[in-house]
């Protein structure tokens, strides 16, 4: 629930500021996801594949955005 609110707020805030870079959204999602995971420390049935995927693709998109 908290994560849903955080993600929705991220989308609304960034779109209001006129951010058109998808890597900015992905990075903020990653930040929100790991912040929520760190605070609530939920038990998981599997490995944290969402976190791993977010980390990987946000790093990739940032690298592309900075032309690395």
């Amino acid at each position, binding site marked *: 629930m908290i994560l849903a609110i955080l993600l929705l707020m991220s989308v609304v805030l960034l779109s209001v500021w006129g*951010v058109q870079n*998808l890597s900015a*959204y992905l990075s903020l*999602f990653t930040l929100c996801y790991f912040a929520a995971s760190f605070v609530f420390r939920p*038990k998981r*049935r599997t490995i944290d*594949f969402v976190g791993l995927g977010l980390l990987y693709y946000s790093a*990739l998109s940032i690298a592309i955005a900075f032309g690395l």
Partner: protein
Amino acid sequence: MLTRSRKRESGQPVAGHRLGEALIDIQTIIIVGLLYWLLQEEQSNAYLRGWLSSNFPLGLYLLSPLTVAAISGTLLFITVFRIAFFVTGKDSALVGGEVLYLLRRQGKHLRELVSTKATSTSALVLASSGAALTLYSYFIIQVVPFTALGISCIILGFTIISLPRHTGGGPGMRAMLQGASRGVEALLEQYNVEKATYLPPVEGGEVFAYVPLTPDIGAVSLSEMRRAPKALSGNGQRAMLVYPVGSELGKILEFQDGLSLEERLKYILIESTEICSRVMVEETGNAIVVGMEGANVDVQGQKYRRSLGSLPSSIAACVIAALHDKPVTLLEERKMGDRLIARFQLLE
């Protein structure tokens, strides 16, 4: 141990195996190179772009820098790991096989979740809608906030899937289980008990454990086991039925929906009681091996453990008996570091 046994079963000649792995790596690198070349060509060749837009518009999206980077990155990531395993001498096939095995099981679990859990179905619907919104927004209408909204739906959907269905357990639950096992321990205390046989429930009832009280009990049929007394009556008593800690597990509503053995054990041992952190199951005919990581085995008395097994194994035996509707006996338990391996045998 489970992984090793699987590996031995599917053994291949080492040289051919390595050659195959090397060919796969080379193919991957060539594919990435071809993708990069196509991207360069698409960006510099106006004729190719025009041809794609008129004959194969999807190709324009597939050859966008982000898509090429994502595909190439994923392929290279996997290849780098494979090469690293090869260079360091670790068995990449073992790890790869394990990953494939896990993925196959995750797919199976997802199907089970869809068929059994409304929340998981909703999560999958959320993730699918998110994926559709993402693709539509990114490729068709090209609106970044909508794309991000779709991605956030995907994240939420998969997060819901990865979370446990129920929270609970912990030290309080373990203390109650320990208390529940004390009653059986007190009953068995004065006897030289032998390995128990877990009897399947009759018409949705309880799982019983048939406990031989003397070593020379011999072969006993299922009906004779069921007729054994549930209380201690005197010195000549040769066996008795006890309620193991997991005797009521067959009555859990979620278990009526066709969950697999591994899902049931995860549900009980990880999600509900937190008695262990990971469960792996191997079934071969009437033999079942259950591996439990982080298993807490010191929460029951000595007699209970000698006859019915440690608490995680005892609970697992109850779940197996209820699922297969057959008597189950715990053949052996082995504690290896943090991991407990229990071998069960289904009796006909």
